[in-house]
């Protein structure tokens, strides 16, 4: 289930099937055991317009192995069996979902014990049928809120979201950056005016310092490209490096908390 036991919460993204499905399962379990609250299982797509080079390359590697949405949901089911309580969501572009059919998609998620989904290129106006099918199976619908979203849009995004709201830290694509944009804190404040759901901040959060900084104003941080970059480096042996990376985030967090 989607809950943030830690403060701040950690949403960890990985591209499933990079380098293979078995490794993705191990990496996800390592992330959970090191302290991730929610796992985003990324579905590789041929045309990832919202993603930067790191996740683009991961998608290409996964697609060379012909990894499909159905297989990613299968990995989700395995993770669910091994770790009954962790939040699990599918992170995907809309086209593979349409190919499966919205109803089939919702049914498979529910059968697999996955908590919900975030569809990157599905805005609230186009999501009516998706939302009602997901609701009918008690699945969470996470939507993106952007610094460019008007208040009117933020209100609609907040109403349509379940589980948490994903606040995009800056205009741009996924990927690491040196500094966290000032946009993020302001956006979280604006989102909170419309909802009591947890707000997670993503896009460009890649190290302990940024993770802590996000913790100051948001319920959780999403870390994606930094994890995927470790997988790119270590391939099938990446679970260890990924686990160590998350433990280090948490250790620094404890230190910072005890200092203050």
């Amino acid at each position, binding site marked *: 289930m989607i809950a943030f036991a830690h403060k701040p919460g950690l949403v960890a993204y990985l591209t499933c099937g990079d380098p293979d499905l078995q490794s993705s399962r191990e990496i996800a379990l390592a992330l959970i055991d090191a302290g991730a609250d929610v796992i985003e299982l990324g579905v590789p*797509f*041929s*045309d*990832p*317009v*919202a993603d*930067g080079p790191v996740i*683009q390359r991961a998608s*290409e590697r996964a*697609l060379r192995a*012909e990894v*499909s*949405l*159905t297989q990613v949901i299968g990995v989700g089911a395995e993770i669910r069996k091994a770790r009954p309580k962790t939040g699990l969501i599918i992170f995907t*572009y*809309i*086209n*593979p*979902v*349409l*190919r*499966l*059919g*919205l*109803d*089939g998609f919702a049914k498979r998620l529910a059968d697999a014990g996955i908590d919900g989904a975030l569809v*990157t*290129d*599905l*805005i609230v*106006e*186009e*999501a*009516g*049928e*998706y939302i009602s099918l997901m609701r009918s199976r008690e699945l969470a619908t996470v*939507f*993106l*809120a*952007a*610094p*460019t*979203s*008007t208040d009117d*849009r933020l209100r609609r*995004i907040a109403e349509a979201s379940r589980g948490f709201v994903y606040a*995009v830290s800056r*205009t*741009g*694509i996924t990927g690491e950056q040196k500094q966290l944009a000032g946009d993020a804190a302001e956006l979280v404040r604006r989102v909170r005016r419309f909802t009591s759901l947890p707000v997670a901040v993503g896009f460009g959060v890649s190290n302990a310092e940024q993770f802590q900084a996000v913790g100051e104003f948001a319920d959780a941080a999403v870390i994606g490209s930094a994890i995927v970059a470790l997988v790119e480096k270590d391939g099938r042996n990446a679970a260890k490096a990924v686990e160590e990376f998350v433990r280090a985030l948490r250790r620094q967090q404890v230190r910072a908390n005890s200092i203050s």
Partner: protein
Amino acid sequence: MKETQAQSVPFVSKCGRFGPYGGRYVPETLMAALEELEAAYREAKEDTAFQRELDGLLHQYAGRPTPLSLASRLTEKLGGARIYLKREDLLHTGAHKINNCLGQGLLARRMGKRRIIAETGAGQHGVATATVCALLGFDCVVYMGSEDMRRQELNVFRMRLLGSEVRAVNSGSRTLKDAINEAMRDWVTNVRTTHYLLGSVLGAHPYPEMVRDFHRCIGREAREQILAQGGRLPDAVIACVGGGSNAMGAFYEFIPDKQVALIGVEAGGRSSELGQHAARFRGGSPGVLQGTYSYVLQDQSGQIATTHSVSAGLDYPSIGPEHAALHDAGRAEYVAASDSEALDACVMLARTEGIVPALESSHAVAECIRRAPQMKKEQIVIVNISGRGDKDMGILTRELKL
């Protein structure tokens, strides 16, 4: 309407829909810009000063109206319907693309955006964008697949000569689709200062509608010209379809004239095997690519297929959503011409009429060559020559070995 393969279409808003097709499938970050663009476009459409300035540029800068030429020797050779050519190839920069670029350029200025980005396949839209940016004093970055840069190198140089930056895209198939991905990534990053000058009737609403409107002049002129020159409406209008902007422009004014057949010609490439062509209505199925719901060449799990065409401008796995609606409604018919048919058509038009069409437009000529002989002599066909073949001399030299 024909049954489509999609199991469900996730829409509530009617906004920007052509039947079930179209819509807006973009990251949330772009929504503010799309709403701003839509509002600016609605205002400009009603603003007579804007329309007067655009008409002035189309007339005095781009060279509108373009002629409708009777192709006497081609007609005689084929021995069937009388063939007229709508001469978009005579426009400034060599293709119909300039119509849309002037319109969107003026809109960008109206919205206070002075940085323009664009994608290009054959380079014709890139050149037209670079031209308008030079004319209006904007900064311009054009994304182009490295495979397309190789096969259309003359146009790469033209864009640079005009002061634009051309950025090579090395992902995917290194063609038009990948250039659009990269342009969208730039836009989502620089959305506050940048206008994305999309070059076809593709993408999220309002692009398909807006780009069509900027090209409506093609069909409007052709309709008046054929009534004046031929004394009646044509029996068929033929245009090539990549994204489908020249075809939408040519077709639109004729849609209410039910007796006029509208024929779109897709790229048949090397064969009908997936990956070897770009004929979306021959093997494609409804799906979402780059912001819009339309026919898409894709595999069983919804991954977008690679495509092939000898003409870079038709080498794209999706098609404008309004074409999808015209197709399903049976109002327009879509056929395919192969690489070799297009090359043969290019040669035939060159040698009968002294007109070298772009390889894209050659696909429309190829369908005319197939169809005209089966029609009666009193029937009339209009072929939209969307661009000229100068840019294709490299490919033509290699392929034709004259």
